[in-house]
């Protein structure tokens, strides 16, 4: 799927999002439900702020010593009979995965949920060599059936769809005849997927966190599909972003507790799976071959910059679930598989500012995201930092804006100019006034008055300065 989900212009996407009533209802309901559960579940942990500090420390420490932990991970994966491959680019990762699959003559691949495989367009790469790649996460499977509709959320990929729409997809694509009752539909999906699980020669998974001390990978799911994908096929390939690693099981415990709560408001998800290498002699199930693909794809260039904290992300989507912008425009409007506040921060880092110039501005900086992030990424500050980079380093700001800001700063740091401006502004705006309000302003003011009125600017005796001065002179 690649990071980018389409070529449409940002504002076109936003308009489509805003006009999609079904989607907006589905998103608003889901946000309310998930965030409500999140709040309940963190309150049972005790001092949440202390947990956040601890999690932040773990993530910072890991990133600062990433080389060391990745090396330790590699050593331990190999010690347990697994293979590890470090891919600098998406292409390198896909080449390696294709080679493994081809060497097994595999045609059927079963996948559990993974954002990084979306990021590198792995499915397309495998399809290009004739493989049938089946998503086994329910949400991902729905999207795959629906002609590869892009995910709109990193935890609940089909969040933008309501039940009825899902039922229709099932009916159109797989002849489903029953109701839109979630249990009934889940049962149907399970039956349909069972055959794929049994036939698959290769299982591919993502990885919530790798554990350096033991060379293990962990998977956090609610459907148990990851367990099927890692026990039945003979070959397992796990793909992870290079930053998704913890030093030991102790840190894993902390982060998984916080991930489950932040992502879905559960103390623990139904399944937390830890896997280490291929099966040992005498083991009943598990893969005979285990490959771990560690993907860089632009991450290492973020290390050591002022944006490093973005790599602390544990992909819980709590920031997305509280974002008011996301609520109104939906995930597809971001044009990326990474939507919401973390997407607005991450996309320009993994890609560039030309491609993602609007996203850092698609935020009021209300900081609701920063407030909920379990690993304390200062998301709204990073958005400001992106804006600064575009203005100061890349010279990407529109000329008119540059001029306006220079003029503003000049006036706001020289009181005589400021005072002159504030005195003349009301007469400039005067002709646009209508009953104390400006309803159709000139120039940039028009953008404001397109949707709301502006109070008429205060002048002369109405102004605070006049009142205060007169009062000083004994008047009132």
């Amino acid at each position, binding site marked *: 799927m690649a990071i980018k989900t389409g070529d449409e212009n940002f504002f076109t996407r936003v308009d489509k999002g805003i006009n999609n009533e079904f989607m907006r209802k589905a998103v608003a309901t889901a946000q309310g439900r998930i965030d409500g559960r999140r709040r309940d579940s963190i309150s049972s942990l005790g001092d949440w702020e202390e947990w956040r500090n601890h999690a932040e420390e773990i993530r910072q420490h890991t990133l600062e010593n990433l080389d060391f932990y990745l090396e330790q991970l590699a050593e331990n994966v190999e010690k347990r009979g697994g293979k590890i491959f470090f891919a600098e680019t998406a292409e390198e990762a896909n080449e390696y995965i294709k080679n493994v699959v081809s060497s097994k003559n595999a045609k059927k691949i079963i996948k559990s949920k993974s954002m990084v495989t979306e990021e590198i367009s792995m499915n397309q790469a495998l399809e290009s060599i004739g493989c049938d790649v089946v998503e086994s996460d329910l949400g991902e499977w729905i999207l795959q059936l629906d002609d590869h509709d892009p995910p709109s959320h990193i935890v609940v990929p089909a969040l933008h769809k309501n039940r009825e729409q899902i039922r229709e997809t099932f009916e159109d694509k797989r002849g489903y005849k029953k109701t839109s009752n979630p249990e009934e539909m889940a049962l149907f999906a399970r039956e349909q997927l069972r055959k794929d699980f049994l036939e698959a020669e290769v299982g591919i998974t993502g990885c919530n966190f790798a554990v350096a001390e033991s060379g293990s990978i962990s998977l956090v799911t609610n459907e148990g599909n990851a367990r099927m994908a890692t026990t039945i096929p003979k070959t397992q390939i796990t793909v992870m972003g290079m930053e998704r690693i913890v030093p030991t099981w102790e840190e894993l415990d902390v982060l998984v507790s916080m991930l489950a709560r932040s992502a879905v408001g559960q103390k623990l998800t139904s399944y937390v799976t830890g896997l280490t290498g291929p099966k040992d002699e005498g083991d009943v199930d598990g893969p005979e071959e285990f490959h771990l693909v560690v993907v860089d794809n632009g991450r290492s260039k973020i290390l050591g910059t002022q944006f490093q904290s973005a790599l602390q992300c544990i992909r819980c989507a709590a920031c997305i679930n509280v974002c008011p912008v996301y609520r109104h425009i939906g995930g597809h409007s971001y044009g990326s598989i990474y939507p919401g506040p973390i997407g607005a921060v991450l996309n320009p880092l993994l890609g560039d500012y030309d491609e993602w110039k609007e996203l850092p501005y698609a935020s009021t900086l209300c900081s*609701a995201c920063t407030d909920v992030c379990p690993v304390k990424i200062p998301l709204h500050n990073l958005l400001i930092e992106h804006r600064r980079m575009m203005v100061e380093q890349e010279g990407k700001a529109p000329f008119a804006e540059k001029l306006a*800001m220079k003029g503003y700063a000049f*006036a706001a740091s020289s009181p005589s100019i400021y005072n002159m401006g504030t005195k003349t502004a009301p007469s400039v705006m005067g002709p646009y006034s209508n009953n104390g309000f400006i309803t159709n302003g000139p120039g940039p003011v028009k953008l404001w008055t397109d949707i709301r009125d502006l*109070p008429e600017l205060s002048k002369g005796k*109405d102004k605070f300065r006049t009142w205060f001065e007169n009062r000083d002179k004994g008047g009132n």
Partner: protein
Amino acid sequence: MKVSLFLTCLADVVYPASVGKSTVEILERFGCEVDFPKKQTCCGQPAFNSGYHRETKDVAKHMINVFKDAEYVVSPSGSCTTMLHEYPHLFEDDPEWKQKAEELKNKSFELTQFLVDVLNVKDVNAKLNAKATYHTSCHMTRLLGVTEAPMTLLKNVEGLQFTELPHKEQCCGFGGTFSVKMVPISEQMVNEKVQHIEDTDSEVLIGADLGCLMNIGGRINRQGKPIKVMHIAEVLNSR
């Protein structure tokens, strides 16, 4: 106690005297001697949030100088006070200015925060017969950390029939330049906010940030809704 008023540019340029006047009168009622340094301008937030940090530094230096002799700086805005608190970050590689910025930060307060936390006032003896609700602005609550002070004071306003705003933690869609750069999104956000306000059946919407009030009030006006918008200083100065 000597207090220097930081009026904010919106209360200075856009709005008539009432917000500043109310702020001064309340502070005086509780024994403060209020001065108004005339050279003050704007906190610099429009430039800062847009990424123009070189320009912001010029504005910040000016404001630091304006208030350098002040004992306390009090402002009728959570967001602009937050911006003053942001100044030290602007001067990370300039120890001299960073020090000065820290000094300004440590003596700057939002109005209700100052009344409750510094002056220890819980009741300002105000009176307003109205059904009202209160919009908690994002910067004031989440960044400045002032959540209880306005409630403490409003609770004691005689005659005020108060209803809490549903989803009060949600942003109104102002966001400074966001309101003109992202008009379609801002419109949806402010519509939702106005709907929540209507759901409380209030006659008056109270707020502590003129930016939000200008946005919400402007939308209410455009829609012709019978809801009056008041700054919290005006409410606390009603009697």
